[in-house]
């Protein structure tokens, strides 16, 4: 009897260990990461990482995932910092200042993002290799013709060399996103690494007419995302709308347009004047009635 009970117990234990539910409890989800490099003007670059995981056949942003970022090597020496993804699965980190000298001197460098010892996800690691490049932006205006010039060059053997045949965009920075600032959506650098476009847009700037014009390369396999921007008075100065402070149909009641105050009030006064006159007539009728003793 005891042997039989022991056998049943062992089988039940084996089943529970092999059952899908037991497996599911132990199994961690896989995480997918996308690491990108962003550099503007001469600022230190920013690393952005986007994490997502597959839930019910769809990739959804992975929120609250801690990701370690490394410069050049996945060691304590190369550890830049740890970031946590937001609700959109994104996190970013500017290259710490202590790596500035290394970053300045290197022509090629590597960034690594890792997820390790996470409760919900399996370990994962991605890396990107970047070749150092820069965009030189020049804005010129001659005879009312405004031109944008961009020159793309890469650091090779301690010297800057022109980068031909690379796609580049001219942009105007707006509040929510970039507006195309060139005649074409996309340009390609020539043999000397240059591209240019006439700037024809008439768009509002700040109160002084300042707008931000730039040239950028997006998601380039070698150079990542590079942007060069300059502030220039090529916009239309914005005159502040203070119509709420003036008399208007949409202003507060103390700023009712004069015509709307005068004419309706004249009509109202005229009509109500007549109504009060009618009430006065009732008074006169009653006086006549009280004065008449004959009836």
């Amino acid at each position, binding site marked *: 009897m005891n042997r039989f009970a022991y056998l049943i117990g062992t089988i039940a234990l084996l089943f529970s260990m092999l059952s899908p539910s037991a497996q599911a409890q132990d199994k961690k989800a896989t995480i997918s990461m996308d690491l990108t490099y962003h550099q503007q003007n001469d600022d230190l670059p920013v690393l952005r990482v986007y994490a997502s995981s597959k839930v019910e056949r769809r990739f959804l942003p992975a929120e609250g995932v801690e990701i370690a970022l490394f410069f050049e090597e996945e060691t304590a020496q190369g550890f830049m910092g740890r970031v946590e993804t937001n609700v959109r699965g994104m996190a970013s980190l500017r290259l710490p200042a202590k790596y500035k000298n290394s970053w300045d001197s290197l022509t090629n460098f590597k960034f690594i993002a890792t997820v390790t010892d996470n409760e919900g996800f399996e370990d994962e690691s991605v890396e990107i290799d970047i070749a150092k490049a820069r965009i030189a932006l020049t804005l010129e205006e001659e005879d009312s013709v405004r031109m944008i010039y961009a020159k793309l060059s890469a650091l090779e053997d301690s010297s800057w060399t022109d980068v031909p045949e690379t796609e580049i965009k001219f942009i105007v920075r707006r509040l929510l996103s970039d507006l195309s600032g060139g005649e074409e959506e996309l340009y390609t650098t020539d043999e000397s690494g240059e591209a240019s476009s006439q700037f024809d847009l008439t768009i509002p700037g700040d109160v002084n007419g300042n707008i931000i014009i730039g040239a950028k390369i997006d998601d380039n396999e070698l150079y990542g995302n590079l942007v060069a921007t300059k502030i220039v008075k090529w916009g239309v100065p914005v005159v502040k709308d203070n119509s709420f402070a003036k008399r*208007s*149909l*949409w*202003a*507060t*009641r103390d700023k*009712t*347009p004069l015509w*709307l*105050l005068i004419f*309706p*009030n004249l009509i*109202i006064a005229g*009509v*109500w004047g*007549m*109504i009060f*006159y*009618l*009430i006065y*007539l*009732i008074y*006169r*009728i*009653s*006086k*006549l*009635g*009280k004065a*008449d003793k*004959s*009836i």
Partner: protein
Amino acid sequence: MSHQQTISSEKITSDLLPQKFGKPGMIWTAFLVVLCLIGLFAYYRQLRYGLSVTGMRDYASWGIYISNFVFFVAISLVGSLITAIFRLTNVGWRTPLTRIAEIIAVSAILFASIIIIVDMGRPDRFWHLFLYSRLQSPIMWDVIVITTYLVLSVLFLYFPLLSDLPILIQNSKPGSRIQRLYKFVGSFWKGTAGQVALSGKAIQIISVMIIPIALAIHTVTSWLFATTYRPGWDSTNFGAYFVSGAFLVGAGGVLVAMYVFRRAYKLEAYITEKHFDNMGKIVVMLAFLYLYFNINEYLVPAFKMKKAEEHHLVSLLTGDFSVLFWSAIFFGMILPVIVLLIPKGRKPLPAFVMGILVVIGAWFKRFLIVTPTMLSPFLPMYDTPESYKTYWPTWEEWSITIASLAGALLIVTIFVRLFPIIPIHETIEENEQIKPEQV
């Protein structure tokens, strides 16, 4: 009128004096009071729990309260039609109808004011409308013009009533409460030449004044809609469209009231078949006019069928509201025209039935003006619950709306109990002046 010539002044007085309620009158009054009490309970719930007890949500923020408001404003226009326009144009047969029209106007405009407060989420802040009024807002124009029309309508009811008060005082029980009421209202009226002249002058002034005010009240109400940019409301025709509809429902309402008072108080000698015949013809003319504006309002946009307006027009013409829409058009306008064009259709009973159809059709027409537009915004809201995209009034809304209609009828009922619904003095005067060849 032919009968009137043979009627003595005493007979006219005894025929037209207000009468105590009989059993049907008591049941009718009690029925109206019960409806009002149910409405008051529903309004208590609305005050207690807020507008969430209604079916109104982010899409349909104007429901049957506003439809009902527009209906009341519309039917109130009848006072100016029958009393003022007929008086100024010397329409001889108007006398038995003037007071009916005026009391309908007063009760309707009073409940228009009340129902608009019911639609407010915070009625305790009603006085803010006056304290913080902005003349830029069409709502403020409506507040001003409704108040003016209410006061003017009360005066228009009051001045012609003065000459009946001595008769009422004389024929009421001395010292009774009702006699004290009559004395309070106008014991000073002695019918002297000076008083008659002043009263005549006042009536003449009101007759002239009330016509533009009455047109303004409904035009301004239409502007509440037309000044907003929404499908179905974005129209320059709206003022004339509303005014023509108001005249129709008012005339229909008078037809109904004429029949009811004629039957209830045995006024066949005063409200004759000729009155029904004439009012029937007026209803036909007004129904044609309103049909014309309806064609303007719906056929022209439907011919163009702009994408942004398509949802609204389709919902009316072939969609969710189509049965109601076509019923309101057919039963509220086309059928009354057909029936009332036939002389036999202008007899009291068929005219009464057509009047009821006009009034009911007009109520639902106002619902169709308000709600389908609210459910068809140019810019649909994002991520709203599916239930917000439809509107059906809750029992609280129905109860309050029905109570408001019952309240208006209750005012008319109580007025008829206290005052003659046909002017006694004026009828006697006309009876004495009438010449045989005019018969």
